[in-house]
């Protein structure tokens, strides 16, 4: 009786054993320790296409000798125990938008055994040419806006560390000239004066123009607008209220004039980095020992935050007069004083990301905003802002509310004129300025494709190992 019971137990044990063997199946040695064929396949495709040979071959007719060469190359480069199958598929899109893959050609050296792995590579025909034709800014409205880029040889820049204003001007020209009917480099401050005076001797149309200042926080100033120039009263101001306070001389008047001109001529004034209009620069005029920015850059004079405030007042049609004595701090202040704030890292808006893809310009979507402007200027100066970045969360450790500050925007005045202020930290990425401008004007780009109707093919290299399991 007990023997029968034990036999029952043994049956149960053997049953458990069989079930365990049934389910606890170890993979074959090849699967566990064999060469990773997928990555070998990927590296083979990439190296064969290193000089474009694979791309050229897969678009050749299947009878072409290049296919034979490719077959030899595959056999020569793969280990002897690895067999391959290389298939090329045409990619085409039907009128209904359905993507079709049609086998164009296939080569192999043997049949596959138990299993195989594959990798793919998408290639584009070398005969295909893609062209992009941008719409000119102002073409639709008939304004045909001219782009003026300040390239004044007698000016220094600030906060453009590692660059010069002149080198950035050339880069901006390369980026933007295709979007404008006319692009003019303003090569010295004499030409800048012609621009400010709406001279007909200057190429292009000054009305409705875009003026880019690649000198960072500095702006070139013509001699005539300086203290000793004949038009000094449009560029220079001596604060003198007859009180006991010391005089305070300033070139914020020049910035005010720029604001007035911007509104008058319906310009878009672009500041590429930092605090706009913080210095004025003319290396031939400002030659005194104190004519520097305190950081070793000579030929410039500090305007300070008064420059931007004066510009905005000029843009808004207000009078220049906004100086007041800050008694507690014992100093003269213009308007609201320093208005820019550091708000940390900011991220592109989804619209800005779309425009990156649309125009093919890819600056980093994360930037550090150290000169963000308060949104209150929109109400104070009657501006509408086209913003590039999402505003950050509030940082409780600061005394101000970060979401109230705009890192980068083009501020359009209701009666004409605009200011693009890139309130990011140095070193400038001029692609952000380019993107801001394109986002503001929104010119279309017409993309054309020439060549064969089927321009893309996908190459799949399937590898398998021979011998054993």
């Amino acid at each position, binding site marked *: 009786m007990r023997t029968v019971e034990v036999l029952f137990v043994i049956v149960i044990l053997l049953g458990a*054993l069989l079930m365990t063997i049934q389910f606890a199946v170890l993979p074959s040695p090849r699967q566990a320790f064999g060469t990773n064929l997928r990555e070998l396949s990927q590296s083979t495709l990439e190296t064969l296409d*290193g000089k474009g*040979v694979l791309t050229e071959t897969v678009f050749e007719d299947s009878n072409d000798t290049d296919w034979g060469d490719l077959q030899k190359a595959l056999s020569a480069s*793969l280990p002897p125990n690895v067999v391959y199958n290389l298939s090329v598929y045409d990619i085409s899109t039907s009128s209904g938008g359905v993507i079709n893959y049609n086998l164009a050609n296939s080569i192999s050296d043997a049949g596959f055994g138990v299993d195989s792995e594959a990798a793919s590579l998408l290639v584009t025909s070398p005969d295909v040419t893609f062209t992009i034709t941008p719409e000119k800014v102002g073409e639709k409205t008939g304004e045909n806006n001219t782009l003026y880029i300040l390239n004044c040889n007698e000016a220094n820049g600030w906060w453009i560390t590692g660059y010069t204003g002149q080198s950035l001007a050339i880069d901006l020209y390369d980026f933007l000239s295709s979007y404008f009917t006319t692009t003019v480099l303003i090569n010295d401050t004499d030409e800048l004066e012609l621009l400010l005076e709406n001279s007909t001797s200057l190429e292009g149309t000054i009305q409705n123009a875009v003026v880019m200042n690649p000198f960072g926080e500095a702006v070139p100033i013509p001699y005539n607008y300086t203290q000793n120039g004949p038009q000094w009263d449009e560029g220079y101001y001596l604060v003198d209220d007859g009180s006991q306070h010391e005089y305070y001389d300033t070139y914020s008047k020049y910035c005010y004039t720029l604001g007035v001109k911007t509104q008058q001529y319906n310009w878009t004034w672009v500041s590429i980095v930092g605090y706009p209009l913080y210095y004025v620069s003319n290396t031939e005029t400002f030659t005194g020992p104190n004519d520097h920015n305190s950081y070793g850059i000579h030929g410039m004079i500090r305007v300070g935050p008064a420059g931007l405030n004066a510009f905005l007042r000029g843009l808004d049609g207000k009078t220049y007069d906004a100086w007041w004595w800050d008694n507690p701090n014992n100093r003269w202040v213009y308007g609201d004083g320093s208005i820019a704030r550091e708000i940390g890292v900011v991220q592109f808006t989804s619209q800005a990301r779309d425009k990156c893809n649309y125009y093919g310009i890819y600056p980093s979507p994360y930037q550090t905003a150290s000169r963000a402007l308060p949104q209150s200027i929109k109400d104070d100066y009657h501006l509408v802002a086209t913003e590039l970045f999402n505003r950050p969360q509030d940082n409780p450790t600061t005394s101000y509310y970060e979401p109230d500050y705009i890192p980068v925007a083009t501020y359009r005045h209701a009666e004409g004129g605009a200011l693009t202020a890139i309130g990011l930290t140095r070193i400038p990425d001029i692609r952000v300025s380019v993107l801001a401008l394109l986002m503001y004007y929104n010119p279309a780009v017409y993309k054309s494709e020439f060549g064969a109707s089927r321009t893309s093919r996908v190459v799949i290299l399937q590898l398998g190992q021979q011998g054993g399991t």
Partner: protein
Amino acid sequence: MAGATIDHMVAVTILIAALLLTMGIYNQMFASAVAYESNRKVAMKAVDIINTACICPGNPENWGETNTSLLGFGLQDPQAGGYALSPYSLMRLRTSSNDSQLVEYPLGSGLFYNNISANYGHGIFSPVGDCLNYTAAAKMLGINGTYGFRLDIVPTLDVNVSQVATKPLKLNVEVHGSGLPLSGATLNYHLFHVDKGEGEYPSITKYSDVNQTNSSGSVDIEFPYVMNNEPSYSFTVYVSLGGVTGVGYYTCNTLPDEDVQYVIPLIQDFDGKIIIAHNWNGDMPAVTYNTTFFVLSSDFRMHPIQIDNSTGQLDGAENPYNTTEIRAYEVGLLVISYLTPEDDMGSVILPWGVGALGVSISFGGDPTGYSFVATELRQVSVNDISYQVKVSTWSLSG
């Protein structure tokens, strides 16, 4: 009563036997699973190492082109990306596994050079102090003391060159891929012919042309303008077919001992400073030399570049070496021809960039004696020359 006892004993015996049997089988299964798991870890580590080596440039990215210390291991060419290795980073690997393989120059100075030899006389002698050793690489990979590895980086194509005849000079080039001859391959070849020249220094004349291998993967190349009985030359050939490329080379000197070079170039630093040294092993004759740096373009053409101290005299006493500088950021060949007072001539090549002369490299530990070694293979290119990278990995914990 006795029947019940016997019944009981039989039952217990059968039960124990059954238990032992099943436990034995279970034990085997568990042992297999444990072995599988541990080997699987090694295999995964091999994939990890080869990916790090092939598709990470290291830190700093351009460490192969400078003398700076390395913070992170990787061999990818940062400019090419993908499965392309930096020809310069490879030169900074300390391939010698023990000190006896190092070269000391000057003798007794304590300055040692790593020797990545292409063939006798043609090698990359790089200063050991600036090279990356195996232990440091293992630490950067985070496997020091846990896993061992070895990288073997070898050209995909096997290109053999041999001299068939002289007057005129005729060379045979044979190209083989993975065990099969490569027919119809395009050959871009360059012959650096050394002659006495008109002055005191030897001259280097470069002859370049294009040819193709026949159906058996070989071709004879004749140089009708080289009519010496005993020519002195170096020859390099770049082979390409269907996206796979390879290099071959051959050197012939008119020296009493073919296996001894009188001039040996050493890399002083990775900024491109080169020491042209007189052979310090034994009593070698004084030589005059003439050297040219040829930059290798992507279509395998050679462009000569003027360098400092391109000519000079070397001997074992007063002028044991001279220095020059080449463009550190361009792959090419430094070809040095030399002439003895007895009119014996020779030439030696320093490849600047591993792919320029198809040099093979082995870097890492020795897997001999370990029970399980996982291997991984990748196809890569080194300055447009096809290479295969094999990594062998094993566990050091048994």
